[in-house]
């Protein structure tokens, strides 16, 4: 898979409609896979923490739907005083957008549905590939694990 493929899609999504500030792609365990923001100099945020909460909220809502027997969750829209958060199911992950408060909700929904269909396939491919890493990469990984173990003993 091409590197930065997720960032590219997220960046394209941000550019496709006005008012989108950020896009974050997370998996359902809370791991941030990719993110993109409108301005590189934009107010720095803790992406990993934001991603963890975004995933948890979506997964929590999904569970609520199951408990209430109202089917699968498609989208969560959270409206704040100064912005909105949109989250949509995206294969094994969740796609999140942070926008201005006055965006065209209908358009964002439409764009997200389209992007989620495209991203979902790629994400599933990416996540399933990481489960069985090819042998040649294992050697490198072994070194990393050893390095981590050594560092651990130094703590």
């Amino acid at each position, binding site marked *: 898979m091409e590197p930065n493929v997720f960032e590219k899609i997220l960046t394209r999504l941000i550019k496709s409609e006005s008012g989108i500030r950020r896009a974050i792609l997370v998996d359902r365990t809370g791991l941030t896979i990719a993110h993109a923001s409108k301005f590189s100099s934009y107010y720095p945020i803790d992406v990993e923490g934001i991603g963890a909460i975004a995933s948890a909220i979506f997964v929590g809502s999904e569970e609520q739907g199951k408990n209430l027997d109202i089917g699968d969750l498609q989208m969560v829209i959270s409206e704040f005083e100064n912005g909105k958060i949109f989250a949509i199911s995206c294969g094994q992950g969740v796609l999140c957008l942070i926008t201005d408060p*006055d*965006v*065209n*909700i*209908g*358009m*964002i*929904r439409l764009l997200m549905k389209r992007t989620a269909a495209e991203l979902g396939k790629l994400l599933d491919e990416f996540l399933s590939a990481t489960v069985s890493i090819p042998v040649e990469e294992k050697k490198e990984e072994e070194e990393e694990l050893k390095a981590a173990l050594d560092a651990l003993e130094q703590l």
Partner: protein
Amino acid sequence: MLSEDVIKSILENLGKMEGVKGVVITTTEGIPVHSTFPPDVTEKISAFAASLLGKAKEMIKEVGGAKVTFITLDTSEGELLISSEQEYVIAILR
């Protein structure tokens, strides 16, 4: 808010117009309120009509500051009329 009665009367009046294929009433945020189309078509028309009206308003504001009241799009298969009413957008296909 547009009341049910107002929506009804709008639709009735539009129904009397010649050749109307369908109507979508949406908020300026692109959320459909009423439609005579199936959901997937409604979603698209709502999003784009609200977006187009927003862009048109932006443009007119930039060049003179007048108020946009109506947009007509002529296409090879008919026309799309978009008008703005309070915080709503009405899209008519005919």
